[in-house]
């Protein structure tokens, strides 16, 4: 049993003397005797707390008395000294004797006063406390936990309450001055008084209790007719009633005291009331019963009760035993036997006394007490004690408490109370390593648990050793029974042993992604060969494999592909067959535990263990499930702390939402590493008990160990999760490598290129090289994948660098390039000229190459031609020169395109040449003119004339042919080759232009009519048509000049008519505008006159209203109201007028 207090005998009086009362104050012990003698002893402080009292009390007693008699005053009082107490602040010693209360000086012991009114006093009580008056009003939220500061006025208030007859006499000292007294009447003679607050006293009568509020002089009953007041539950009511019914108390000692016992527990501001075996708690603030606190159960009826920090002490009614209890847990911590005790002086320096002996209760250092409790494995008590103690008593209290709680949690774990254990671990934010050490390596991931007993060995020694043993035993005894179908375990074991080397592991074709794999050697086998040196590693591998095999309902002896594996896993874990899962779990865990023990092997052959095993598997599953409580909590806390470290959130934010103060050191110095341990363990747990949660875990931000994740997820074919994990971790290379391998296999959900494509779609420009690397193959299979990857309407696809994508797709196929460029140009509306150019050129190439394979009318040729035209017409971004240079000169396919291009560069003549000579579509030629005709642009003003010229003075045939306008020269391979170098201004064009400038066309008859310069016949019909439709848009003189002289006048009729009309229209319009302008002139003149008529006359006497000087001949300003002021005064006048207006305006409003 704990030795919280050590009794030290301090006073031993002769048998004649009888101790009637004791009181200790500071370093003095006052002992009042029945004879009226007062003895005062000096207490040697060095012996009380500071000296570690590790040895037996005997040694203590031999080492000299700890107290020294200072003085002994006989006849201190007339009668016996019935009660002694003091008011330290007032330096007053209070004594009760002969029914009177006497006041003495505490130091000199001189009698100060006899309180006359206290005649018939039976009991009194003192209270002395500091009152704090805060000068400032603090907000209510902070006021509660705020400590009194020096700024506050401190005032000590001491109270003395004396019960005499049916009255309470209350005296009050402030400082050392008695300032007042009052009387409060009660219905009966009080038997006991207990201060529960400085200004509240609990007053025990014969049959009931009253709560007396001294300043208010109110008396309120706690019980009414033996029943407690207020609604409280039945159990408590019964207890309370029992306490209230003092009269029925049969306890002799209680009768002697006159009432039941009460003491105040300062820790939670409650008051414990005891009567016989019953007890109840009152709130010191309100005086109501606390429903939440269960009563203390005493084995022996207590006769005296007190509180000495931090324990409740009581003396049994038999008066032979002092009991020390923890006020929180009520556990009886210590019992000290004494000869009959009659007096108890509680408080800081507790003393007990019999009729002639006094003992000092010397408190052992708390550290020693704690160590003792821990040694005794009373962890609850140790926790409770440390929680109640103040920081000053225990060094490093917080950490000690944390450590204790962790020990307790470990104990609970050993008792299979996993949930409680884990909750406690989370409560103290235990380091993950410590918690995980309780679990087999399959969960904890701890490396090579080589010691025989597995992780349980790491539990604290001593606590519940029996429980520990059973746990261990159970676990060790678990047989490994082979696959779930019930094959003989021996056989299974044999198979396992051999299979590990023979069976290709399920992830056989994944080896390339594993660094340690070489060639086509299966991973597991490889790992085993590596692990030959490190046996534990091999064991572990094998355990995993065995577990894996358990999970597979059907055993595939031959090369079991990972596909089968993953399917089987899917069934096993998701299906209803959970029991087989837990079986395997048990095996798995037990394998992990007993990794290197040989007993495991011997146990294997015994089939009798089949039964309890499945039950135990559930327990283990339960343990793992409960681990989640801790892991999730730790994960959240660590992530929050990490946010604080990284500055995402502030410490203040954290404190705002958490009650406990979190520091980064709560878990461990290296948060990153702790996070990794926690998340990895979480993953392992999920893998075992709830694989469906692996997905959410790896998709979220996590710190799982990459290696473990890969190992675990590959083992069970959780490809989708693994890929999600890689994605979340931005390990895109790994993910894509895996996807590539999976795509080659068959039957999985990941075969084929689609998963790769879907993954690539999620990657943006920062991973563009990876995208290119892995996009090639899917695109080779189907070009549509290219569209999916590069042209998806997603931010990722759009973020990809367009020039780089273009370059990439260009290397793959032209059709994809065209699609991509079309997407960029038309859908994304990219305005960079490069894409427009490249698209046009790509169309061009498309037409060219298709033209060699298909006939010119074929859709394969015509479609790109149309697209090209569309682009050329709609886009304004491309460089026409560049496209023109790339166009074959003689291909009919591009004639219209060329026309557009020429038009773009302002070469209307050449555009028109195409319409006239090549396409021979005069309507289009006219439309073209219409579209570009613009009288303001010098270049396009003359288009109609140009067209007319082409009709009437066509260029030489050779020139036309050279430009490929002649339809006869169809597109040919040779032609296309030759045309490639056709420049923007070919030499032939220059040749052609030169004669024109020389007025070549104006006198065609003078030219030498050889073959080269033979002109095609003029197209009079088209010309006349043009003239009649658009005659007005070209100069009549120029037109007539071009017309051959033998043109029939009638055919020109319409031209003339339209021209005349146009001219007439112009004349009429001009006339109208002339007339309008005249009107305008008149109006303006009128305005002028009006303005001129506004005049002011300035005489010699006329003065300026501002400066009041004569205006004379100085420069003046005239205002609209004809006020005349000096020019210089105008500004100030204007201001006064404005301000007046303003005032008026305001008044109007």
């Amino acid at each position, binding site marked *: 049993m704990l030795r919280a207090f050590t009794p030290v005998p301090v006073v031993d009086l002769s048998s004649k003397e009888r101790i009637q009362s004791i009181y200790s104050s500071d370093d003095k012990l006052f002992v009042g005797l029945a004879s009226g003698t007062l003895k005062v002893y000096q207490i040697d402080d060095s012996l009380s707390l500071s000296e570690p009292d590790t040895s037996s009390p005997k040694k203590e007693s031999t080492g000299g008395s700890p107290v020294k008699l200072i003085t002994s005053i006989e006849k201190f009082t007339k009668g016996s000294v019935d009660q002694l107490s003091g008011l330290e602040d007032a330096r007053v010693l209070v004594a009760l004797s002969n029914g009177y209360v006497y006041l003495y000086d505490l130091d000199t012991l001189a009698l100060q006063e006899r309180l006359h009114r206290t005649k018939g006093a039976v009991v009194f009580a003192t209270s002395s406390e500091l009152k704090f008056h805060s000068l400032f009003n603090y907000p209510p939220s902070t006021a509660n936990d705020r400590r009194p500061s020096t700024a506050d006025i401190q005032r000590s208030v001491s109270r003395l309450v004396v019960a005499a007859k049916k009255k309470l006499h209350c005296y009050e000292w402030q400082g050392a001055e008695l300032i007042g007294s009052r009387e409060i009447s009660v219905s009966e003679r009080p038997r006991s008084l207990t201060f529960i607050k400085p200004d509240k006293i609990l007053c025990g009568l014969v049959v009931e209790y009253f709560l007396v509020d001294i300043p208010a002089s109110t008396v309120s009953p706690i019980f009414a007719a033996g029943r407690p007041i207020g609604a409280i539950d039945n159990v408590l009511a019964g207890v309370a009633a029992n306490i209230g019914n003092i009269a029925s108390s049969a306890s002799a000692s209680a009768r002697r005291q006159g009432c039941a016992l009460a003491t105040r527990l300062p820790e939670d501001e409650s008051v414990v009331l005891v009567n016989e075996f019953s007890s109840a708690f009152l709130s010191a603030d309100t005086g109501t019963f606390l429903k939440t606190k269960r009563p203390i159960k005493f084995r022996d009826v207590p006769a005296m009760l007190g509180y000495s920090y931090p324990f409740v002490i009581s003396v049994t009614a038999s008066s032979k035993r002092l009991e020390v209890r923890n006020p929180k847990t009520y556990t009886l911590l210590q019992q000290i036997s004494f000869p009959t005790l009659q007096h108890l002086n509680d408080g800081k320096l507790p003393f007990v006394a019999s009729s002639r002996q006094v003992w000092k209760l010397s408190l052992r250092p708390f550290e020693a007490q704690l160590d003792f409790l821990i040694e005794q494995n009373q962890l609850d008590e140790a926790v409770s004690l440390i929680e109640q103690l103040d920081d000053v008593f225990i060094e490093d209290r917080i950490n000690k408490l944390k450590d204790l709680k962790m020990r307790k949690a470990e104990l609970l774990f050993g008792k299979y109370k996993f949930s409680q254990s884990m909750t406690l671990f989370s409560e103290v934010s235990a380091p993950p390593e410590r918690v995980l050490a309780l679990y087999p390596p399959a969960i904890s991931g701890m490396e090579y648990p080589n010691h025989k007993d597995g992780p349980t060995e790491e539990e604290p020694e001593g606590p519940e050793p029996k429980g520990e043993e059973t746990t261990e035993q159970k676990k060790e005894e678990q047989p490994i029974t082979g696959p779930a179908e019930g094959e003989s375990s021996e056989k299974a074991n044999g198979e396992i042993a051999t299979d590990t080397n023979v069976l290709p592991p399920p992830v056989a074709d994944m080896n390339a992604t594993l660094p340690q794999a070489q060639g086509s050697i299966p991973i597991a086998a490889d790992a085993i060969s590596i692990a030959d040196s490190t046996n534990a590693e091999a064991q572990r591998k094998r355990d995993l494999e065995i577990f894996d095999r358990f999970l597979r309902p059907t055993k595939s002896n031959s090369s079991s592909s990972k596909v089968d594996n993953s399917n089987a896993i899917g069934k096993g874990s998701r299906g209803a067959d959970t029991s087989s899962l837990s079986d395997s779990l048990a095996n798995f865990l037990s394998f992990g535990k007993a990794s290197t023990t040989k007993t495991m092997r011997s146990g294997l052959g015994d089939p009798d263990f089949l039964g309890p095993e499945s039950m135990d598997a*559930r327990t283990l599953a339960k343990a793992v499930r409960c681990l989640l409580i801790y892991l999730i909590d730790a994960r959240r806390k660590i992530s929050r702390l990490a946010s604080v470290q990284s500055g995402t959130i502030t410490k203040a934010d954290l404190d705002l939402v958490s009650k406990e103060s979190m520091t980064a050191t709560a878990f461990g110095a290296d948060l990153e590493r702790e996070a990794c341990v926690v998340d990895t363990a979480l993953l392992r747990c999920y893998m075992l008990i709830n694989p469906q949660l692996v997905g959410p875990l790896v998709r979220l931000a996590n710190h799982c160990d990459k290696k473990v994740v890969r190992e675990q997820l590959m083992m069970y074919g959780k490809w989708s999760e693994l890929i999600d994990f890689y994605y979340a971790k931005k390990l895109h290379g790994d993910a894509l490598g895996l996807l590539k391998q999976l795509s080659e296999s068959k039957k999985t959900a990941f075969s084929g290129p689609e998963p790769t494509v879907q993954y690539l779609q999620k990657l943006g420009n920062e991973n563009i090289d990876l995208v290119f690397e892995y996009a090639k193959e899917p695109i080779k299979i189907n070009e549509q994948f290219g569209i999916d990857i590069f042209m998806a309407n997603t931010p990722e696809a759009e973020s990809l660098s367009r020039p780089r994508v273009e370059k990439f797709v260009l290397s793959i196929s032209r059709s994809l390039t065209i699609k991509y460029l079309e997407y960029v140009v038309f859908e994304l509306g990219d305005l960079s000229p490069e894409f427009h150019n490249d698209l046009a050129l790509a169309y061009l190439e498309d037409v060219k190459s298709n033209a060699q394979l298909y006939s010119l009318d074929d859709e394969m040729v015509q479609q790109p031609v149309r697209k090209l035209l569309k682009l050329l017409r709609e886009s304004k971004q491309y460089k026409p020169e560049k496209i023109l240079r790339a166009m074959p000169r003689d291909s009919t396919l591009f004639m219209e395109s060329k026309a557009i291009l020429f038009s773009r560069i302002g070469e209307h003549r050449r555009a028109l040449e195409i319409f006239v000579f090549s396409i021979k579509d005069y309507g289009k030629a006219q439309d073209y003119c219409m579209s570009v005709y613009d009288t303001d642009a010098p270049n396009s003003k003359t288009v109609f004339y140009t067209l007319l010229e082409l009709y009437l003075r066509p260029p030489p045939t050779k020139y036309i042919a050279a430009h490929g306008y002649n339809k006869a020269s169809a597109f040919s391979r040779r032609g296309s080759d030759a045309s490639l170098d056709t420049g923007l201004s070919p030499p032939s064009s220059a040749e052609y232009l030169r004669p024109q400038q020389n007025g070549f066309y104006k006198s065609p008859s003078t030219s030498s009519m050889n073959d080269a310069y033979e002109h095609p016949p003029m197209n009079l019909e088209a010309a006349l048509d043009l003239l009649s439709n658009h005659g007005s848009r070209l100069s009549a003189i120029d037109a007539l000049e071009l017309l051959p002289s033998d043109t029939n006048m009638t055919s020109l009729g319409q031209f003339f008519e339209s021209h005349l009309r146009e001219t007439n229209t112009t004349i009429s319009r001009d006339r109208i505008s002339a007339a309008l302008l005249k009107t305008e002139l008149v109006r303006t003149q009128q305005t002028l006159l009006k303005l001129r008529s506004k005049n002011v006359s300035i005489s010699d006497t006329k003065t300026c209203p501002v400066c009041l000087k004569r205006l004379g001949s100085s420069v003046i300003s005239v205002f609209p109201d004809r006020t005349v002021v000096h020019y210089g005064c105008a500004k100030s006048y204007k201001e006064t007028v404005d301000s007046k207006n303003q005032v008026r305006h305001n008044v109007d409003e």
Partner: protein
Amino acid sequence: MLKVIILGDSGVGKTSLMQQYVSKKFSNQYKATIGADFLTKQDVRVDDRNVTMQLWDTAGQERFQSLGVAFYRGADCCVLVYDVNNAKSFEALDSWRDEFLIQASPRDPESFPFVVLGNKIDVEESKRAVSQKRALAFCQAKGNIPYFETSAKEAINVDQAFEVIARNALVQEESEEYSSDFSDPINIHLDNDRGGCCS
């Protein structure tokens, strides 16, 4: 007692939805939720039963997210809220769902009831950033999660949504009771006092 957790980005209207449902009130003022808060709605009629719903409102802002008690545990239904005018809040739903699954670790994550609410549909159509089609596709992909478009401000669809939430939560609670009855039997073969465990 049905425990319902409401999750979603900050400012999507979690608190407002809850207030509207429980006390038929709406405030235009934004006040960030700190930690977590819950409201209780009593006498919710689900088919023929009267149930009490405890609605846990959570902080959307990272800095105010709770750290202490794992209040996700024992949840019967999780409500994911986003703002139809804020595409980011929609995209975050997946993470919120994953986060919930990890925090709550339900025994059967696939059948655990979620309900998605697209809030703030009272805002003018031109500001809408997430189409109904897109939201429905998401819900479909996540196992046919019920989807509602709501307005806490104008009390559109709020009661209807919570009716479904209550019904699904009730189903979940019953199934949970069932499964915990059968999957964690009391082990009579052990002498040790294996106390109650997490279930």
